[in-house]
């Protein structure tokens, strides 16, 4: 609402006073495009109700003490000091960043290579692509439940097939659980990113490869000299999704381990949920939520800046 009013002022400004170049140009364009401000309203309303209002609510709640029943009572910075002095929080922050980095290192090369392969013309490619695509069809809850059953050391697939390696205590050993979670997350998200890379590779003009072949470049050379640079923006998109997404993994980890064993997989989103809905400390859960929002926004902003996404231009021939 506020921003709409502000735009109105801006529109009237050129007539009233000497306009600066920028606002004159933007208002001129808006006038030519029709009643665009009004069309913004539905989206703004949704964004306000479902994103801004809850966000403000969480910030307010972080300064209160509330157990979910009755009315929240103002508690100043109590919840903040409680959360920031709790070693569990710092452990959660550490685990969250570790999970982000490790899942990225696993997912990025895998999905890049798979995507490139899926865009090619090899034999059986389509059949294999369908198989790679399968994890994307399952809900995170289903994946969590199935993996939990498969990895059970007593009744899981390892016991059924009599393979000692698969009979390890994957989700019950504090040292193994984290890496198991990394693997399951990668398994379920690699197909999505492969799909992005497949689309990216398909858009690279074949003429570039033909020219490179004529110049005597081999497949490996072509991959590094053409495919990779041409995929720059796909890499930026996919990396942003992976990194910002992994800061907030919740459903899969919740079902697989619920943060356990001990606190071995208690990442920030889980810490938030458990504080809020198991311990019923909504104030402290809100503090963690605010931390998550700040970290998430900072990271995605930093990624945007680093990748120069504000100056996106095509490097494609003729485009």
């Amino acid at each position, binding site marked *: 609402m506020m921003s709409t009013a502000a735009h109105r002022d801006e529109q009237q400004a050129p007539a009233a006073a000497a306009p600066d170049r920028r606002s004159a140009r933007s208002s001129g364009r808006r006038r030519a495009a029709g009643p665009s401000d009004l069309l913004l309203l539905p989206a703004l309303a949704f964004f306000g109700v479902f994103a801004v209002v809850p966000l403000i609510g969480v910030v307010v709640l972080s300064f209160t003490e509330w*157990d979910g029943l009755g009315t929240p009572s103002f508690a100043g910075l109590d919840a903040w000091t409680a959360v920031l002095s709790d070693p569990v929080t710092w452990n959660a922050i550490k685990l969250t960043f570790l999970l982000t980095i490790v899942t990225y290192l696993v997912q990025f090369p895998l999905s890049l290579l798979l995507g490139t392969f899926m865009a090619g013309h090899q034999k059986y490619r389509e059949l294999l692509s369908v198989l790679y695509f399968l994890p994307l069809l399952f809900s995170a809850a289903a994946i969590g439940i199935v993996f939990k059953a498969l990895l059970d050391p007593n009744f899981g697939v390892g016991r059924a097939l009599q393979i000692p390696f698969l009979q390890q205590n*994957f*989700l019950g050993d504090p040292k193994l659980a984290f890496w198991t979670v990394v693997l399951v997350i990668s398994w379920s998200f690699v197909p999505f990113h492969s799909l992005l890379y497949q689309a990216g590779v398909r858009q690279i003009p074949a003429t570039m490869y033909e020219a490179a072949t004529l110049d005597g470049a081999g497949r490996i050379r072509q991959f590094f000299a053409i495919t990779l640079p041409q995929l720059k923006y796909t890499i930026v998109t996919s990396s942003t999704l992976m990194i*910002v997404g992994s800061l*907030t993994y919740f459903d899969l980890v919740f079902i697989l381990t619920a943060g356990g064993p001990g606190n071995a997989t208690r990442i920030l989103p889980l810490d938030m949920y458990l504080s809020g809905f198991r311990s019923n400390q909504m104030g402290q859960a809100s503090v963690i939520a605010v931390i998550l929002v700040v970290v998430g926004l900072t990271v995605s902003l930093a990624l945007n800046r680093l990748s120069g996404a504000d100056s996106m231009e095509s490097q494609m021939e003729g485009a």
Partner: protein
Amino acid sequence: MAHVTRRGVLAGIGLSIPAMTMMTACGGGKKPGGAGSSSELSAWILTGAKEKVFQDSFDRWNEKNPDDKFTTQSFANDAYKEKIRTAVGAGNAPTLILTWGGGTMKDYAANGDIIDLTGKVDGIAGRTIESIMQVAAVDGKQYGVPNNDTQPVFLYYNKDLFEQNKVTPPTTWTELMAAVETFKGAGIIPIALAGSSVWPELMWIEYLADRIGGEGVFQKIEANEKDAWSDPAITSSLEKIVELVDAGAFGDGFGSVTADSGADCALVHTGKAAMLLQGSWNYGTFKQDAPDFVSGGKLGYLTFPTVDGGTGDPANIVGNPNNYWSVSAKADEAVQTKAIEYLNDYNLDDTMVADLVAAGVIPSNTGVEDELAASDDADYLTSAYTMVQNAPHFQLSWDQALESSQSQQLLDSLSQVFLGQLDPAGFVTAMNATIK
């Protein structure tokens, strides 16, 4: 995809609050599933062996009261505990609110979310065991009534494995440790433990603290006495737990075992584990998952062993005295009256008692010895019933008795003790910090 997930999570905590306030403000329009309306009867029930017993009881009411039907909705145990609290907090609860008594029910009562039933439920009070009824009283006011079975915790065991390895059922801690040694040597997990669910680990410290120091140890903790966790009985209970873990009593994989899926029972009836410390509701699980094992008389059950030098009464039991129905204060008065009528006339009536006995659980009613003796599980049910009636003290599960933030810390710290990540002294410090 990633963004959707993040919003979903944020929405979970942030959005639900204003959204639910709005829903409440709009007033009780009928919502799918029945909860939320103040002018209609509704109840949320738990899935599992007793789900049908509840449902049948409501169906019988609905048949006789076509104008005031109950709508019911079933939830899994853990999901229910979170959902009901949000619903109650938002003034959106079903008419009948199921609790375990203890801390949560006290919170509801203190916030005026449930009504005082004193003097209104004499019908049901007349047919249930007095001490079980008492658990749902706060400061002399009755806020709930028992609604299903009483749930003491037993040491279940696989009789075949005991015979094959020539082990006699342990009655003392020393015998238990000797049995652990023997089974471990035979390549059998001595004791199944659902460490992934964490709460079954509580049963060990609950029983040990009671056997070593008596029921007073936890009563001090419950009363929030300063440094109540420093009681020597707590420390020596934790040392005994460490002793068990170090002896390999729970096997290497207990952290992967979940209770909700019945994996701990499965370890016992498939002969992979010899013993299991679990609640009486697991008898139903055994019956359901391994009917031949139960009917063949392979399932044994013991009271928790005594500990040398312990001052607790060996007849004391821990577990859940019962589940309880409370009546929502947000329901219209006419609806409350109808709900109370249901509680007095249908809840735990003869038919429901018969259904519970058939499901292999112990009803909380007085004078059901004959029904128990006539059932398929006469031995088990009769001995469990006698055990409950003779128990000088029936301790409610600690996680239900304590405030939720305290019980969450308790579960966290205890699971770390079982994993060897926290020593008894660290546990005591962490828990003393929760006392207000």
